[in-house]
């Protein structure tokens, strides 16, 4: 991203928590309002560095709709010190925000094609903005599909919104879980088991796929899509690496020749597919 218009990209701006939604046991979503000036526009797939005062900073994807930049939305899973502090924030609390940073999902460019979103677990958060964007222009895409996998029915993120996308917004939505108790009437099985079905009867060469989830899930899903005939330059994935500066200075997020903070997090599969399968980096 062009950081030249940000006065000091290392300086967090103050935001206030407007609302908090407890999504899952260890996952919370919050909406933020700026204190120090107007809201910053962002693109779907970009991330912010969120600073929990006195604790530290973490890279968290923006999961709101880019058409509504005044509502900055982030969904965080509590995995460590900073994310724990972020998920503890309540309405009225303050935090620091740097960003937005990084590359975005090329949603507009896929018009006329079958837009397939594939999310695993918390991977739905970085895709949410892109899904909202595609559904706002639904008729410009041949088809909009979401394939969403989670560990169990209790781990499904944004449950009501996912149902709404399927019921009212013209998206073809498939949800699948790894295991379930008897009584769950949806799909059971990893996302790759649903690919053939969701693409059934479609021209696979006209599919554009955005995949976000754990790295192994993205690797296997992309491989299967290619096997089904989806072009490698029509598949994008979103990578995560530890971040510090988020500006391409410190090298913390280096992944092969790329810095995930600046060249990513969204990468086109034909440019990184081989690297995705390497275990050394």
């Amino acid at each position, binding site marked *: 991203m062009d950081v030249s218009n940000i006065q000091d990209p290392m300086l967090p701006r103050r935001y206030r928590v407007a609302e908090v939604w407890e999504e899952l046991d260890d996952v919370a979503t919050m909406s933020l309002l700026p204190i120090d000036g107007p809201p910053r526009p962002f693109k779907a797939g970009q991330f912010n560095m969120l600073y929990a005062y006195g604790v530290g900073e973490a890279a968290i994807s923006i999961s709101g709709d880019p058409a509504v930049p005044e509502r900055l939305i982030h969904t965080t899973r509590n995995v460590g010190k900073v994310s724990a502090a972020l998920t503890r924030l309540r309405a009225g609390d303050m935090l620091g925000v740097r960003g937005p940073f990084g590359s975005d999902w090329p949603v507009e460019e896929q018009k006329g094609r079958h837009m397939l979103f594939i999310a*695993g*677990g918390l*991977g739905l958060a970085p895709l949410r903005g892109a899904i909202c964007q595609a559904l706002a222009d639904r008729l410009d895409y041949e088809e909009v599909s979401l394939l969403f996998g989670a560990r169990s029915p209790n781990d499904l993120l944004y449950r009501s919104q996912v149902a709404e996308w399927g019921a009212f917004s013209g998206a073809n939505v498939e949800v699948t879980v790894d*295991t*379930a*108790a008897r009584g769950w009437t949806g799909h*059971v099985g*990893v996302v790759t088991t649903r690919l053939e*079905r969701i693409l059934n009867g479609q021209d696979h060469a006209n599919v554009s796929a955005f995949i976000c989830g754990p790295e192994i*899930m993205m690797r296997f899903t992309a491989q299967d899509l290619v096997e089904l005939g989806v072009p490698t330059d029509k598949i994008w994935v979103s990578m995560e690496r530890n971040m510090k500066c988020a500006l391409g200075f410190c090298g913390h997020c280096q992944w092969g020749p790329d810095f995930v903070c600046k060249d990513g997090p969204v990468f086109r599969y034909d440019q990184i597919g081989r690297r995705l399968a390497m275990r050394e980096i």
Partner: protein
Amino acid sequence: MEIHGIKDILSGHPVFKDFDEETLDLLSGCGRNEHFKKNTLLYAEGDEADKVYIIRKGDVAIEIAAPGRPSIVVESLHAGDIAGWSWMVPPYRSSADARAMTEVSAVSLDANCMRGKCDEHPALGYQMFKTWLPHLTKRVRAQRLQLLDLYGTG
């Protein structure tokens, strides 16, 4: 009449679509239409794998029961999916329960009949394994991914 219907169903299925007329005639002779009420078992773990089912309508849960715990659904099958792969591999025993989650219509193929046809016509047996194995390997791979608990931390 029924045999004809079953042949049409088989020829439209990805696993059988490349089989020639004669082979489809042979296999259709092993088939019949079946219906299951919601919550009934197509087969139970440990049962002799005497049938393989091609699901035509409805949803089937593959469940594993553990003592003292409620059954866990580890896979769901839907129209077009195949249930009961154990018919192909000794000792021909089902390795899980298959429960109808809804009303289910399926074509069942009698495993003894199928194995008999394969023994009689080795070329058919070879073709059968060649077309079915990729489906099996896909499922094994999917189950490996499931074991990794992929999304737990993602």
